[in-house]
């Protein structure tokens, strides 16, 4: 239990300073339905620590969590098994600080780890250079757009409709302040992404085209032609990846001609953690772009005694030196998450990553085959890695997900949730399957999904029959 030494006067002073009448005013952005409307129910105003803990644990026990439920949620955050050794290794004293080191050379363990992290990310992405990480995939995506505008001296970005909508939102939010023009659209429900439509939107003022791979619907396509089309117009190709494990099975974005590759690193070592902190990955295919990269870079060197050592390099591009002309106003990195990523990746090795990817894909294929047999369910994808899109008959997928939750199954992410109000997408459901998914989980989802769709159909039929 924490001791909070604020007095009522302290609070009143702070509220007056920031111009709020009450503490509740600070929470106006939280929807009213999500706010607690009074004291916590059944918790007395005065109780012992043990009583409070028992009560709060019982309340927490009402949550349906990823750990104890058949779980098929993905859409940018993936449940994977994290070896217990990851947690042990990241707590070792050699990693003096988990934060980005400001007196870097004293933290050789941290620097060596970052150097290895950069090597792993660069190899995973098929790129020449990766940085020491950014905050998360969506902010890395914006940084890629900003970098492309610096490199090309143009100010328009074309976003693929199949880019994660949250990433597109972050890009649009940031662009409000830079004045860059962002051309985006919603995804079309079709088996293959419309890459021709995408390339036709690239013009002479386009700094970059941003494509997710695998995309928000789980589709996988060769992006070489998009790269060629972008390069022909003098634009860069930015490829976004939200599931790094996929790159253990499919061609790397760098190999397909992506100039900047960014993504979310959460899937390896980090865990779901209620949505954060996560890990932004950022790499460039051609080393000539290194000085336009945002963030920190760790480099290898030899010290005065000729011994191998590590330094932070190219810091002159960063804001503590270049001020408002820095490549980014983010100089920090997700140090602890990067350490966890690298530890997990090191334990896997290249062979292990490939095996892990193969296992994810095998189980995802099993799930897709089984779910496709459920009446009223169609599989959209021709190709996928560990996540695919189902089209469901009957009521909107968002409601079906809620019904499944009532039955103790976290069945997936509905596109209705990601794109509220877009009718064309409301019957689509994203289903993610990883090595943590069991064959039993798949069977439970198939059975419950069938029951939910059937009861909805029966209900609709009953409603349509005239009253006797």
């Amino acid at each position, binding site marked *: 239990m924490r001791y909070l030494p604020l007095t009522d006067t302290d609070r009143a002073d702070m509220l007056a300073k920031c111009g709020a009448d009450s503490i509740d005013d600070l929470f106006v952005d939280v929807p009213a339905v999500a706010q607690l409307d009074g004291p916590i129910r059944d918790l007395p105003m005065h109780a012992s620590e043990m009583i409070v803990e028992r009560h709060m644990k019982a309340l927490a026990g009402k949550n349906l969590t990823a750990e104890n439920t058949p779980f098929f949620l993905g859409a940018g955050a993936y449940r994977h098994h994290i070896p217990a050794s990851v947690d042990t290794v990241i707590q070792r004293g050699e990693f003096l600080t988990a934060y980005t080191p400001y007196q870097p050379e004293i933290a050789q363990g941290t620097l060596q780890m970052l150097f290895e992290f950069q090597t792993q990310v660069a190899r995973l992405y098929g790129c020449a250079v990766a940085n020491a990480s950014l905050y998360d995939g969506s902010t890395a995506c914006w940084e890629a757009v900003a970098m492309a505008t610096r490199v090309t*001296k143009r100010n328009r970005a074309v976003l693929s409709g199949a880019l994660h909508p949250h990433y597109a939102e972050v890009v649009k939010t940031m662009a409000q302040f830079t004045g860059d023009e962002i051309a985006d659209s919603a995804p079309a429900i079709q088996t293959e992404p419309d890459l021709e439509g995408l390339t036709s939107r690239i013009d002479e003022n386009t700094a970059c085209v941003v494509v997710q791979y695998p995309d928000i619907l789980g589709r996988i396509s060769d992006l070489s032609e998009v790269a060629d089309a972008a390069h022909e117009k003098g634009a860069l190709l930015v490829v976004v990846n939200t599931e790094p494990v996929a790159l253990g099975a499919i061609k790397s974005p760098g190999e397909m001609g992506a100039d900047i590759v960014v993504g979310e690193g959460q899937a390896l070592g980090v865990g779901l953690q209620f949505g954060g902190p996560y890990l932004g990955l950022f790499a460039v295919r051609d080393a000539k772009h290194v*000085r336009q990269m945002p963030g920190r870079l760790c480099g290898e060197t030899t010290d005065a005694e000729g011994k191998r050592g590590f330094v932070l390099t190219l810091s*002159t*591009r960063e804001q503590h030196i270049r001020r408002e002309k820095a490549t980014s106003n983010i100089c920090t990195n997700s140090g602890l998450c990067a350490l966890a990523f690298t530890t997990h990746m090191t334990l896997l090795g290249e062979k292990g990553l490939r095996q892990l990817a193969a296992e994810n894909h095998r189980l995802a294929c099993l799930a897709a085959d089984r779910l496709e047999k459920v009446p009223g369910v169609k599989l959209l994808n021709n190709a996928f890695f560990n996540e695919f899109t189902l089209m469901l008959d009957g009521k909107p997928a968002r409601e079906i997900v809620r019904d499944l939750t009532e039955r103790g199954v976290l069945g997936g992410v509905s596109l209705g949730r990601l794109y509220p109000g877009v009718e064309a997408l409301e019957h689509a459901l994203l289903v993610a399957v990883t090595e943590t998914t069991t064959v039993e989980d798949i069977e439970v989802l198939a059975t419950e999904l069938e029951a939910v769709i059937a009861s909805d159909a029966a209900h609709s039929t009953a409603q349509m029959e005239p009253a006797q």
Partner: protein
Amino acid sequence: MPRYFTDEHEWIDVEDDIATVGITDYAQEQLGDIVFVELPAIGTMLDKGGDAAVVESVKAASDVYAPITGEVAEGNGMLEDDPALVNSSPEEDGWFFRMTVSDKAELEGLMDEAAYKEFVAGL
């Protein structure tokens, strides 16, 4: 050939309506070992006082401003492979770029060598 200086420590040689621009010996000494020079693209229109190039040393990255208004005609390609030229020969081989002179009157506001020496002595 007249040589002019700015209070941002750039020098300019003007010959046949083309100005060659670099940074002064004093500037390179202040910056330390130069590791990278980012030059403006040919054809870029520069406004007097606006950002023209970036010079990066082990200590800092600094902007080089356009001493006059004009269009970039040429960049010193040698700096790409050997940025240390700025240290070894700042006022000769280590020039940055060449540009057109849009308005000769702008040159009148700049310092000559004697005035620049005096300016540096006063720093």
